[in-house]
């Protein structure tokens, strides 16, 4: 199937999954996993950078419309998309992506993916929770939220990846 169509489907499914199911997970009021980041993480590696930014902005805005916080998620995902090329470089070091179209668990391995998602998720959560409180006054609480939410987000993202990449191998 066409890459673009796959990405559009991924966009819709992840946003709906986020707002209809994951947003209702309530663990003590501090844990807010955001699995829709997976959309930005899995975008094609050689995608033009400006498209990457627009995709990040778009998925953030879509989630914003549902949560009633225009600009909040969009701001965080745009920054995350902005950082993605550098994070890819940082995480993979000398590794080249010659034959790889988009980040793929089978080809790049679990350890690579965990490092990749830790960087991406931290950038996103940091921006999101600071923008949300809109001040540095509640810094302690913000840090607590980040430290509690990021592991859950990373865990969920890895779970989803393992679920779906095993399907791909069978095909």
């Amino acid at each position: 199937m066409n890459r673009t169509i796959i990405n559009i489907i991924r966009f819709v499914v992840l946003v709906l999954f986020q707002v209809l199911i994951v947003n209702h997970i309530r663990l003590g009021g501090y844990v807010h996993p955001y699995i829709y980041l997976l959309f930005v993480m899995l975008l094609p590696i050689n995608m033009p950078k400006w498209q990457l930014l627009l995709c990040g902005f778009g998925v953030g805005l879509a989630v914003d419309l549902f949560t009633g916080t225009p600009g909040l998620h969009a701001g965080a995902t745009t920054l995350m998309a902005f950082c993605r090329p550098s994070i890819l470089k940082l995480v993979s070091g000398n590794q080249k992506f010659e034959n790889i179209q988009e980040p793929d668990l089978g080809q790049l391995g679990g350890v690579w993916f965990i490092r990749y998602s830790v960087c991406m998720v931290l950038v996103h959560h940091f921006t999101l929770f600071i923008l949300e409180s809109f001040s540095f006054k509640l810094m302690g609480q913000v840090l607590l939220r980040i430290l509690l939410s990021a592991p859950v987000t990373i865990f969920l993202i890895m779970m989803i990846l393992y679920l779906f990449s095993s399907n791909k191998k069978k095909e």
Partner: protein
Amino acid sequence: MLNLIRFIQKNHFVILFILLEVICILLLSRSQNFHKQAVMNTTNNVVGRIYEWGSDVGNYFRLKKTNEQLAEENALLRQQLSVVTDTTQNTYLINERDTIYEYIPAQVVNNSINQAKNYIIINKGKLDGIKPDMSVISPDGIVGVVSNVSSHYATIISLLHSNSIIGVRFKTSQELGTLKWTTNNYRYGMVEDIPTHLVLNEGDTVLTGPYSFIFPEDLMVGTVEETYETASGDLNRAKIRFSTNFATLRHVYVIKNLYTTELDSLRAKF
């Protein structure tokens, strides 16, 4: 000019990034302002419909509990009705307050409790007579204030919103306070500006205050959980437990004040 174009071409990634972030910050700072959520307004219908699908599925799993709650409320209303009908025939209306307010039942289609600014979406809108600034209550206590309406849905600013401020009163002493949500926990709110001489006990009832243009007087808000004294001898604070359980909110009532226009026109004069 050519240089400028070349500059933009060269740095289009950074420029687009800054542009998008500026848009985000603008949107965000605009939404800090209570009633100007233009973006929300236009998409409310689509978003509301999708949420309704989601909550339709969830509702099946809660049918038993919902039934029990409604039955309980029925029983309570029946009890109140018997009080009314028992008194002499010509005093059907216990007091004037009942005649000013009309209650519109609605269902919650989406609700959040773990953000810093929580909103609730209900399945009644402009066509059902809902307007911004109407108050919303649940059978257990107050819930929030309507902020935006589309034709079939309405957004409510939950009590669990960092900008929410509500005038409250302690039932036993009649002293006033201001309820804010600074705890970031969906079970508790914080009443501030409490006079220092006031002695509060755990479990004291907190009701809505008398001076609100939005909430009717004496609605249940919650009970006192913990009190804090300020060292400087300024006004005290008290943590209260909301009587409404925001995590399981399903059925709510929107309260319509039949004299809103009159009140507003009067208020516009000062």
